[in-house]
């Protein structure tokens, strides 16, 4: 009964609960709608595999051991390329944000990098490096890099000049400035950068493995595609999409946390 006693608090939590509930209903409805659209596509589009076949294939891939090995191989390549892109991209982005010369020098190249589609990188690396780990890793690196550079440079530029001038006036060292001013300011944007880089790099990884690998998620999807078994292809595609949604939600939460200091 204490809840009713605090009259002023009640509408607030109730409204909150209500909006939570309605958004949960909306989400469930949207998942159901997407499944319904899939079912419609099965009925009307010939050769679109049905849900039952797809999930059965996913199960048999899991039972045969193909699922985890290929996923692990792909993740390994993905992380290697992504970490390299983050390290190089952060260095270049900070340089572009701080120095006008670096900015002028690199703007055109990053623009070009953003414009090049992943499929071109995948085909070029396949021609250059053949079938091996270098092809997917390089493609992931090249697909992710421009997004990291652009986002980090934007964040560094947004740091108020007064803060930097004050640090200089008080003789704060370079390492200190990097750690205590630049790092917290770009944390939120770094997560945004990672988010975009992951979207782009994951797509690149699939293509690189599709064209130039003999293992991994992209290769396995191609295996089923070449065998003209689209349920296998779709099963792997669902895994890619699930991965993207999970990463996106997780990074969204992380972004909220990293920018919390700004709102207080």
């Amino acid at each position: 009964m204490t809840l009713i006693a605090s009259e002023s608090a009640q509408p607030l939590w109730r409204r909150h609960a209500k909006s939570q509930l309605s958004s949960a209903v909306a989400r469930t409805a949207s998942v159901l709608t997407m499944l319904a659209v899939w079912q419609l596509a099965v009925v009307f589009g010939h050769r679109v595999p049905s849900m039952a076949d797809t999930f059965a294939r996913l199960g048999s891939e899991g039972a045969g051991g193909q699922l985890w090995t290929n996923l692990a191989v792909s993740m390994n390549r993905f992380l290697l390329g992504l970490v390299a892109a983050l390290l190089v991209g952060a260095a270049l982005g900070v340089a572009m944000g701080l120095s006008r010369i670096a900015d002028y020098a690199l703007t055109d190249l990053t623009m070009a990098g953003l414009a090049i589609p992943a499929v071109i990188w995948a085909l070029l690396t396949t021609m250059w490096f053949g079938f091996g780990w270098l092809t997917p890793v390089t493609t992931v690196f090249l697909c992710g890099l421009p997004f990291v550079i652009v986002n980090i440079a934007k964040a560094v530029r947004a740091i108020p000049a007064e803060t930097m001038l004050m640090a200089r006036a008080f003789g704060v060292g370079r390492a200190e400035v990097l750690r205590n001013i630049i790092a917290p300011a770009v944390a939120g944007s770094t997560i945004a950068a990672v988010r975009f880089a992951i979207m782009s790099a994951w797509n690149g990884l699939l293509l690189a493995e599709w064209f130039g690998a003999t293992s991994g998620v992209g290769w396995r999807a191609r295996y089923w595609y070449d065998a003209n078994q689209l349920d296998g292809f779709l099963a792997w595609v669902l895994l890619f999409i699930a991965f993207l949604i999970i990463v996106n939600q997780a990074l969204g939460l992380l972004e909220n946390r990293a920018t919390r200091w700004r709102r207080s």
Partner: protein
Amino acid sequence: MSTNTVAPQVRPTRQTSTPRNQRTVRWLISVATLASVLVAWAVVAAVIDDNIVPRPLEVFARVIDIVASGEAASNFTTTLAKIGAGFALAVVAGLPLGFLMGRGAFMNSYLSLPMFVLGNVPGLTYAVFALVIFGVGPLGPVVVSASVAVPFIAINVAEGVRSVDGDLLRMCEAFERSPRDVLRHVYLPAVSAFVLVGVRYGFAMAWKVEALTEVFGAQSGVGFMIRKAYQEFQVDDMLAWTMLFVIVMILIERGLGHLERRLFAWRKELA
């Protein structure tokens, strides 16, 4: 040590100088970087000395060949025509979706997941299903570019609908304006700027996925030419098409940005 003597002269002028001086510096630096990249490329090509890394001059010669033979014009027109048709579809579908998303919290959470999925599904999925469902004709790329562009347009339209001043709507109600008038004079001007922003961002995505679809199955277009270069193992052709691709894309993006500034100069907050 000539740089040391030049630096103090440049510093004071920079603060008082016109943006024009600034622009020259900018231009010089970016040309210098591009030149050094070209030199690095030439050195790598000379060291490797194989068809797999063509020399810059060979690639430029290919670019000129492709442009002079009219191949570039015809393939870019077919690709851009498919994207244009796709975008027309996307605007038609994205406007009502964005309107719904902007007006209600329920519709917003209902539609945001499908929009995320549509916008972020790996291009490979679109390419394969377009080929399976629509065959190698032009319909596949059109539908693909429409589906990639819809979320960008819908999300921006929703943003535009949210940006409409509530006081303005209440005033319309008080003066008993018809819904048609409200739509025409309040929502349309607010939303149209956001639609253009959505088109600009959506274009960058749609164009890549469209090219990928053409790589998988098409009889013409830029993606088809890239596929041909890959199958004939012609790295110089591939690099030449990549270069043209980048140039055309940047030109179109600049054009759209310019259009946006011209048409919506009256809206300061978008700038």
